C-alpha cells in the first residue's frame, strides 16, 4: 500500500501530520503541496544538479534590487535594507517571483528618483529571502536573514498566509515591521503583535465585498440573478467563503441550484461542469484557488455552452495563461485586492514594460505597493530604524503617491490592528482591450478602467 500513501495532499495522514500545506487565504491562489516530496526533491535536485533551491538569497546575500553592499552603498551613500520574503522556489515560486518583480521595480523607481529624501537620499536595498513553500522554511530563512543583517528596517512578504504567519513570528520578535498581503485574520489579530501591517482585506470581509462588486452590476445589465451555482474546493481557504456566500444568497432569496465541492487536485472537471450546465444558473461563483482546477472547470463549462457570469476570488484568475481560452475568457471575473486602476494606468503600463509582462496583476502590484509604503514610512520616520518606521507606519495617513495610486482607495492609513480600514478590493473582468485580452478593473466604479460586460 506504499503507493497509496505517497505524497498526495488529500491523504489523511499527511493532513493529520501537518505535512500538507494549503493556502488559507481567500485571494491568493492556494495549491496543495506534497511537502515531503518537495522537500526531498529540493535536496536531491540540489545535490544532483548542483543547484540550490534556496541559493544565497536566504542569507541575505542576493541583492534583488538597488545597489549591492551593506548599510553603506558602493558610492559611500547610506542604504536602507529591506527583506523581500517571498517564495522563490517550490510551487508558489511564480507568484513570489511576480511579487518580487513588483518590489524590485519600486526600489528602482525610488532610487532613481533620489532615494529617501528624509534620509539624505539614502537608497533602498532589497534582499530576496526565499521562504520556500513551507512555514518552517519561511521561519528559518527569515530568521537567518534578520540574524545576519542587523540593519534590516523592514521585511515584506510572504504571499501565502501560512508563510506570512511564520515569517512574521520572527520579525515580530526582532521588532521589525512586516508588511504583508496576508488575508488570514490571524495575520494581524495575534496577541501582542504590533509590527505587522496587512494591506489587503481580511478573509471575513471578502464575501460582502464580492457580492457588492457583482450582483448589482449583473442585475443592472439584465435580469436580477435569482439562481446561483456555488462550487469550489474544500480547502480551509475556500470553504469559509463558500459558506459565507451561501448564507448571503439565502438572505437575498437567491436559489443555490448547484452546490459542489471537490478535494484538490481536481483530476476530472467534466462531471462538475456538466452538473452546473444542467442546472443552468444565472451566475456561477467558483471559489477555488488552484489554477489547474478552476481553469478546467471553466473550460468544460464554457464548452458545454454556459455563457453566464462566472465569478472567482483570487489572483489565479488573472494569470496570462487564461488567454489560451481566447474569447471564451471574456466576462470571467475575479475579486482581488488590486489590479490596474484608472488612476494608475500610466504607472502600471510602465511597470508592465519594466517587468517584461503583457500586463501587471495583483502580485506585481502588491510587491510594488509594499515597497512604496515602506518608503513613505521612512520619509515620515526620518530615520532608518525599525521601531521608528513601525511608529511611522502606524501613524501614516498617506493620500498621494505611488502607493495610493495602485490601491483602490484615497487614503492609506492603518488601524491599531494593523489593517487598513475599511477593507477594499477590486473586481477584474477579462475583456478585450485594444485587441488584447486583459483582466480589466470594472469595480469600484470610481477606479474602473473598463465598463462591466455581464
Amino acid at each position: 500500500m506504499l503507493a497509496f500513501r505517497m505524497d498526495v495532499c488529500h491523504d489523511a495522514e499527511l493532513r493529520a501530520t501537518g505535512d500538507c500545506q494549503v493556502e488559507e487565504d481567500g485571494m491568493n491562489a492556494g495549491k496543495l503541496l506534497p511537502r515531503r516530496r518537495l522537500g526531498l526533491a529540493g535536496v536531491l535536485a540540489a545535490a544532483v544538479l548542483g543547484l540550490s533551491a534556496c541559493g544565497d538569497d536566504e542569507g541575505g546575500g542576493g541583492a534583488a534590487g538597488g545597489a549591492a553592499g551593506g548599510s553603506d552603498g558602493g558610492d559611500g551613500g547610506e542604504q536602507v535594507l529591506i527583506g523581500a520574503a517571498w517564495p522563490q522556489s517550490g510551487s508558489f515560486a511564480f507568484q513570489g517571483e511576480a511579487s518580487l518583480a513588483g518590489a524590485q521595480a519600486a526600489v528602482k523607481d525610488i532610487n532613481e528618483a533620489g532615494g529617501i529624501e528624509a534620509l539624505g537620499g539614502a537608497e533602498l536595498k532589497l534582499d530576496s529571502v526565499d521562504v520556500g513553500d513551507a512555514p518552517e522554511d519561511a521561519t528559518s530563512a527569515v530568521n537567518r536573514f534578520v540574524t545576519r543583517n542587523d540593519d534590516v528596517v523592514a521585511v515584506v512578504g510572504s504571499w501565502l498566509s501560512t508563510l506570512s504567519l511564520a515569517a512574521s513570528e520572527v520579525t515580530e520578535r526582532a521588532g521589525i515591521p512586516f508588511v504583508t498581503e496576508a488575508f488570514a485574520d490571524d495575520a494581524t489579530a495575534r496577541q501582542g503583535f504590533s509590527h505587522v501591517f496587512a494591506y489587503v482585506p481580511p478573509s471575513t470581509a471578502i464575501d460582502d465585498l464580492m457580492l457588492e462588486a457583482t450582483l448589482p452590476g449583473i442585475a443592472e445589465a439584465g435580469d436580477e440573478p435569482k439562481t446561483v451555482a456555488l462550487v469550489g474546493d474544500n480547502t480551509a481557504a475556500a470553504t469559509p467563503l463558500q459558506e459565507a456566500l451561501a448564507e448571503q444568497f439565502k438572505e437575498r432569496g437567491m436559489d443555490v441550484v448547484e452546490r459542489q465541492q471537490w478535494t484538490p487536485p481536481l483530476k476530472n472537471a467534466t462531471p462538475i461542469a456538466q452538473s452546473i450546465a444542467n442546472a443552468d444558473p444565472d451566475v456561477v461563483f467558483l471559489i477555488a484557488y488552484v489554477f489547474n482546477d478552476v481553469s478546467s472547470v471553466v473550460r468544460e463549462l464554457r464548452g458545454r455552452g454556459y455563457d453566464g457570469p462566472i465569478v472567482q476570488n483570487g489572483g489565479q484568475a488573472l494569470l496570462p495563461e487564461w488567454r489560451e481560452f481566447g474569447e471564451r475568457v471574456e466576462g470571467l471575473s475575479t475579486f482581488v485586492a488590486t489590479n490596474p486602476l484608472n488612476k494608475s494606468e500610466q504607472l502600471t503600463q510602465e511597470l508592465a514594460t519594466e517587468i517584461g509582462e503583457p500586463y501587471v496583476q495583483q502580485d506585481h502590484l502588491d510587491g510594488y505597493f509594499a515597497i512604496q509604503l515602506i518608503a513613505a514610512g521612512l520619509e515620515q520616520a526620518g530615520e532608518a530604524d525599525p521601531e521608528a518606521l513601525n511608529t511611522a507606519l502606524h501613524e501614516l495617513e498617506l493620500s498621494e503617491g505611488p502607493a495610493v495610486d495602485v490601491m483602490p482607495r484615497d487614503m492609506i492609513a492603518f488601524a491599531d490592528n494593523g489593517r487598513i480600514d475599511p477593507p477594499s478590493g477590486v473586481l477584474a473582468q477579462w475583456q478585450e482591450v485594444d485587441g488584447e485580452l486583459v483582466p480589466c478593473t470594472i469595480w469600484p466604479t470610481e477606479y474602473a478602467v473598463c465598463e462591466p460586460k455581464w
Partner: protein
Amino acid sequence: VTEFLQFLTLGILTGGVYALLAAGLGLIFGVLRVINFAQADFMMLAMFLAYVLWSGPSIDPFVGIPLAFLVFLVIGMGFHRLLLGRVTGAHENHEAQVILTLGVGLILQNAMLISFDASPRLIVPPYARDALDVGPLQIGAPHLISFGVAVVVAIGLFIFLQRTSQGRAIRGTAENWEAATYMGIDVNRSQRIAFGLGIALTAVGGVALSSFQPLDPFVGLDFIVIMFAAVVLGGLGSIGGAFAGGLIIGIVEAVSQIWTSASLSMVWVFGIFVLILFVRPQGLFGKAERAV
C-alpha cells in the same frame, strides 16, 4: 436516465486516459517487477513535450503522439540501460529500485521547475472549446479522441505482445525471467523494451491528457494514485487489468457525482477498490493474466 448516461459516458472517456496511464505502469511491473515511482513524472514530461510542440510549431497534441511515443520509448530504454538495468534482473535490488525511481521522479520534477518554472500551462486546441452534442449527451472532443487513442494503443499493444516474437519474449520474461534466459531469450533486452514501452504508453496517455488538463512540473502527483490504484485493482502485472482498472476508476469517479459531492468521488473509488480486493485480493485479472 439521460443524466446517468451522460456521466457514464464522461467516466468511460476519462477512464480511457486513466487506462493508458496505468497500462504503462502495469507493463513495467508485470515484466520487471519494478514499482516505478517516476512513472507519473514521465507522464508530466510527455505533457511538457506536447506543450512545447503546441506553443512552438503549433503541433496538435494528438498529431504529436507518434513522436512522443518514439521519444519516450527511447528515453525509457535508455533509462533502463543506464540505470534501472543495474538493479533489476540478475542484479535485482528492490530497495535500490524504489529509491532510484523515487529519486528520478524528484529530479524530473525539479529539472522541469528550473527549466519552465512553476507556472501552470494550458493547451487549448480550437476543437477543444465546444463539446459535441451526441443526441442528448455532451462530449468533449479531446476526451473522445483520447479514448479513441486509448483503444487503438490497447489493440496495438495486444497485437505486439501476442503476435510478434519480441512480444512473446517479453511475455516469457514476465512469466519467469530465469527460465526465459535458459530458453535463449535475451531477457535484458526484453526488459529494456518492456520498460521503454511502459514509459511510452504512459507518455501517450500524458499527451492525450494535456489536451484537456493544465500542466505544471508537479502534475504527475495528481495522477500517481490513480495509476497505482488502477494497476492494483486490475491485478498487479496484468496489462488488461490495468486498462480495466483505469476504466472502472474513471466511471466510478464520474457516476458517483450524480448522487454525492465531487469531494467524495475518490471515496467512492477507493470504496469500490477495497470491495474488489476483499473479494479478489489478487485484483480483477491478477491471477488470469499475471504473466501478461
